[in-house]
């Protein structure tokens, strides 16, 4: 029997940006909040002096231990799924702060088009532009309504950037100016400007100057040390929950973060959540944490799995295309971030230096900023150059035609170690009726609960869009003066490698309970006191990095939860304007 703990106002599952923002806001408002984190307790000192590429980049130190739990994966709804067994093939952040600690820091607001993609596409191109198998839908909330939440998160996180010249209206600038630019970044900016595009600096969660956020937390200036993506920050100079929302929550005296707490179920009775059941991973003991409000703010895949395991909401059935939990799973996989790599014979770059979000980008081919009338796809993405700061193991880029080992490989990999740049397309991925999440019938975790099963394959428009972006990237790389330009090949098939951490959907936001699981406050339609927060709410994936949108929906949810704690009930009126096609 589980030990029943004293009831709290709010229990939050997960401590990344989603759980951290919700915890900070509600504990500031005076509510008692307990956050449960499956991973270890970590502080900044865990990340000081451990600049070790093998351990973090190649052995995935900050990623979920898969020995107890992973996912299974398949392409088609009639196949047997196999487990994704290694951390090379499946990365999901863990430990206090979650995936929001190892992120690169690339910050983009999603576009007005993204929030109303179905309506706006039909408005401009007509109904037939959206293929029958594509299940994209409007968010039920507009960019204009989301804007204040973006602004709040950017200020909490201390984002350093400049506005997108082709972006939607902003109420304010980023709180900090863009980071310093390296010669490679300048080369991209100057070249694309000459080509008539509208380049701007990637907004960064790596601080261009020391900054104190509205909650009084100090973030330090980034040192460009290069140990950034897949690392915790040595200097407290990355916008992450460990230096912002988690200490803010702790200062209130109303917050407790419990680590080593592996949540197994959301407990519920008579249509209301009563708390969560979790296991202390250090002792094996089971606990029940009762609460007035339960917030699932774990990773996308965990949010989905917990709802399915807890039997909350109707699971999506692809055969009838009914049900909502697991519906519209969407992600950026091996068809995105493709482009062109240029090799320079007479030019070397200090590419061992850098920061996760040191870069430049342009939105000329993003969203609906360009005419799609004669194109066989909708939406688009940013074109980006990034200077992460490359490690020695990672930097083995060689021109096409070079063998992958032996004498010639050695010569070229060393010759070009500091002589290559890449430009890529961060393209959007749309949702399809056949891509969804469910529980696996065979494989289980260490406690014998079913693993989550992913069913995913590419839609018809994915390849043409990738090829479009690759071609634009090639043109830019050639104009940048590279002597050799190698382009990527757009894949036909999903490779079942989950290494970008951009996985979303399954508990999606919307205006209609028939096609969405949560309302625009991230409140479950089926359970008033359960909020599901994070990228699990995205109905489809925009052509830009997701983190700012996770932060923005978390502020939106926090407002909703506070509202619910005061007044109770559903926060949003149901609208029955189902836009999903019936299979009949």
């Amino acid at each position, binding site marked *: 029997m589980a030990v029943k703990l004293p009831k709290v106002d709010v229990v939050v599952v997960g401590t990344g940006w989603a759980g951290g923002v919700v915890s900070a806001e509600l504990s500031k408002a005076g509510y008692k909040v307990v956050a449960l984190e499956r991973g270890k307790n970590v502080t900044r000192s865990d990340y000081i002096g451990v600049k070790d590429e093998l351990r973090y980049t190649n052995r995935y130190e900050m990623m979920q231990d898969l020995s107890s739990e992973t996912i299974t994966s398949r392409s088609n709804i009639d196949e047997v799924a196999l487990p994704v067994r290694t951390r090379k093939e499946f990365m999901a952040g863990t430990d206090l702060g979650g995936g929001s600690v190892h992120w690169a820091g690339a910050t983009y607001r999603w576009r007005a088009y993204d929030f109303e993609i179905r309506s706006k596409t039909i408005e401009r191109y007509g109904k037939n532009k959206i293929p029958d198998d594509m299940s994209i839908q409007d968010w039920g909330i507009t960019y204009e309504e989301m804007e204040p939440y973006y602004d709040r998160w950017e200020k909490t996180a201390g984002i350093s950037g400049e506005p997108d010249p082709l972006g939607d209206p902003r109420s304010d600038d980023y709180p900090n100016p863009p980071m310093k630019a390296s010669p490679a970044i300048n080369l991209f900016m100057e070249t694309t400007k000459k080509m008539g595009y509208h380049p701007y600096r990637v907004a960064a969660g790596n601080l261009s100057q020391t900054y104190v956020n509205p909650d009084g937390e100090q973030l330090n200036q980034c040192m460009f040390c290069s140990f950034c993506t897949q690392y915790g920050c040595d200097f407290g100079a990355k916008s992450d929950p460990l230096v912002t929302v988690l200490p803010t929550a702790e200062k209130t005296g109303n917050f407790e973060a419990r680590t080593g707490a592996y949540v197994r179920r959301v407990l519920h009775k008579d249509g209301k959540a009563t708390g969560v059941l979790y296991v202390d991973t250090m002792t094996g003991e089971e606990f029940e944490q009762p609460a007035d409000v339960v917030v699932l703010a774990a990773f996308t895949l965990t949010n989905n799995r917990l709802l399915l395991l807890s039997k909350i909401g109707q699971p999506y059935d692809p055969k009838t295309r009914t049900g909502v939990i697991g519906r519209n799973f969407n992600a950026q996989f091996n068809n995105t971030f493709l482009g062109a790599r240029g090799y320079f014979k007479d030019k070397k770059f200090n590419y061992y230096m850098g920061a996760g979000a040191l870069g430049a980008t342009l939105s000329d081919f993003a969203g609906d900023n360009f005419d799609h009338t004669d194109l066989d796809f909708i939406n688009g993405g940013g074109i980006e150059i990034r200077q992460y700061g490359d490690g020695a193991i990672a930097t083995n880029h060689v021109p096409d035609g070079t063998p992958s*080992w032996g004498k010639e490989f050695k010569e070229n990999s060393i010759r070009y170690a500091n002589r290559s740049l890449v430009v890529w397309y961060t393209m959007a991925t749309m949702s399809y009726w056949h891509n969804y999440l469910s529980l696996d019938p065979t494989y289980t975790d260490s406690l014998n609960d079913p693993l989550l099963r992913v069913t995913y394959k590419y839609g018809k428009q994915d390849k043409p869009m990738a090829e479009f972006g690759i071609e634009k990237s090639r043109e830019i790389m050639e104009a940048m003066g590279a002597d050799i330009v190698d382009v990527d090949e757009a894949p036909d098939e999903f490779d079942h490698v989950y290494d970008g951490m951009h996985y979303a959907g399954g508990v999606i936001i919307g205006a209609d309970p028939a096609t969405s699981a949560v309302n625009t406050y991230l409140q479950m339609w089926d359970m008033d006191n359960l909020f599901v927060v994070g990228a699990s709410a995205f109905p489809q994936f925009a052509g830009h990095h997701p983190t700012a949108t996770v932060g923005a929906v978390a502020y939106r949810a926090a407002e909703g939860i506070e509202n619910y704690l005061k007044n109770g009930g559903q926060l949003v009126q149901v609208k029955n304007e189902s836009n999903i096609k019936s299979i009949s």
Partner: protein
Amino acid sequence: MADKSTDPNEKQGMSRRTFLKNSGLVAGGVVGGSLFGGLITNQIKKQPEVEELSDAKISGGLQEARIFINRAEDFAILSAATERIFPADDLGPGAIELGVPYFIDKQLAGEWGNNAKEYMKGPFITNIQAAGAHNESGEQDKQGPNSATQVPVPTPRYQTIMNRGELFIVGLRKIDEVAQEKYDTRFVDLSPEEQDDVLRMFEEDEVEMKSVGASNFFYLLLSTTLEGVYADPVYGGNKNMMGWKMKEYPGPRMSYLDVIEEEDFIVMEPESLRQYQGH
């Protein structure tokens, strides 16, 4: 500091540095490590046999011994194979001189070799030929495009019941078996070109292995070799940071804030994790 990595007379100096580091560790074990500087000269005088050992090209001092691979024959195959993947040439040392075989041995002895953090619950796919090769290399270019590695694979990749340690032992012995079948000679006694031919058969899946695709083993060998060339020397490879010197990689540094805007390429004498943490 000037970059001396291209100086052929540097070898002696490097060995000496390795020795100093090892001596430091010995001293640390005895007196608690706080007297690092003062003790070194004494250690050198008292242990000349260690200095001799460290002068040998393949030695990393007292830290180079097999702790996972039992059979010397297996280790010899590993050494020869890694040297073909990353051969010594005019640019600098190859895998053996960089300590890569010992690096791999140490990796296999630990958590990674044991697949301790991987999902190893069954059922496993037992008919590997039906499932096709898996675990193809996606490693070569993680931060950007390389169309050669974007091979569509219809199922998740690592599906063997063997952990990496077991996979290496089986694979190394298979290399020798193929060498003997094809050339009637042990792998280590083949010419470099013949060794390449044998390795290429694994790379191209022309060899049948039990429970795993031959190319899976080959890509594992390839990626682990490159890790050994370029990982921090604390793991036993990249000896004396010679891998980093070849690539003009400076190792972990506190800050590039003052130089990030520099137009010219900056070569720095590399520093290791030991030096970074020892500030």
